[in-house]
């Protein structure tokens, strides 16, 4: 049985409400999804929360998965959850009268607990613009191809390719 057949069997089980199959999906994707959320938020407890929301949504929405790349589908939900979270944060900020702060700066403002050690990659990632940072995260953690990324973002593949290349090049320079 190939990896794809195995995944198809697990997803079918999920659609039938099999708890064991959902557990397998969690084991397969929790690490990557958590990395995606963590690199975007720089906050462990927020990432914990977003990961929990993601898998709860997965149970709710598995019926709407109609085939194709499961990773693309899952990370599209993850991306939506992240954007919803950003919107809530933004609204809270507005309420706190911090309208002048741009979305781009938000990730650097995420509160971290003292015990959290932020690596150099996280620091440098926060210097990229929000859209590029998310694109890089999707590329690395979802393992989507450029074609899939372009489709997910509803933009031409050339745009995705050049945006990602520019971002990765800048990140590489920052890390050196």
């Amino acid at each position: 049985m190939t990896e794809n057949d195995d995944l198809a069997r697990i997803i079918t089980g999920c659609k039938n409400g099999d708890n064991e199959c959902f557990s397998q999906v969690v084991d397969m994707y929790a690490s990557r999804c958590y990395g995606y959320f963590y690199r975007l938020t720089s906050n462990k407890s927020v990432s914990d929360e977003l990961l929990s929301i993601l898998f709860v949504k997965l149970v709710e929405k598995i019926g709407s998965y109609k085939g194709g790349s499961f990773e693309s589908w899952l990370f599209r939900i993850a991306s939506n959850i992240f954007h919803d979270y950003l919107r809530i944060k933004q609204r809270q900020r507005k309420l706190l009268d911090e309208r002048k702060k741009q979305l781009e700066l938000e990730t650097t403002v995420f509160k971290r607990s003292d015990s959290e050690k932020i690596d150099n990659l996280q620091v440098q990632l926060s210097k990229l613009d929000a859209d590029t940072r998310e694109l890089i995260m999707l590329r690395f953690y979802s393992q989507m191809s450029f074609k899939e990324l372009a489709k997910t973002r509803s933009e031409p593949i050339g745009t995705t390719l050049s945006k990602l290349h520019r971002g990765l090049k800048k990140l590489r320079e920052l890390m050196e």
Partner: protein
Amino acid sequence: MNGRNDENLKELFEKFYNSEQTYKAVEDVQKAEQIFREYPAPEPDKELIAGIKTAIAAGLLSRQRGIFRTIAYRAAIIAASVLILAAISINLLDKRGRSEKLVYASIIPRAIWESDNIAIDDADLAVLTGEIEQIEDEVLALQLGESDSNGDSAATELEMELIDADSYFWKG
């Protein structure tokens, strides 16, 4: 759709860049991805994963209960609808059956209704009404034991009066 591991970066970049740019772009992408491998993001805690699995199990259970409840409610509604329809149908059929059995008949002869002499008919009716009232009074007196005569003769008298009234009425 193929994943990232199946795609040929060089071929992809060559569609948009010249060969030198393509070489550089592929190198940039690969080196940046290498950085990600060197700096792995933290892993989710085991407790978090266990909590997520528990939440999923609970969610599935409540969803199954919800589905069962929905089916039960629907079945109950359908059963109730069938019962109501059956009751209405039986009621309608019963009414229809009963209406066929009904026989309409006039208790007053057609000759009376079709009489042209209204003045005579009115006078007859007045006499008849008076006699009926008198008989009613006598019956009432008998029931209450107020009559002076003995019961047998009183009843006979009443019977005679009724016969008189009846023959007088039908004779016109």
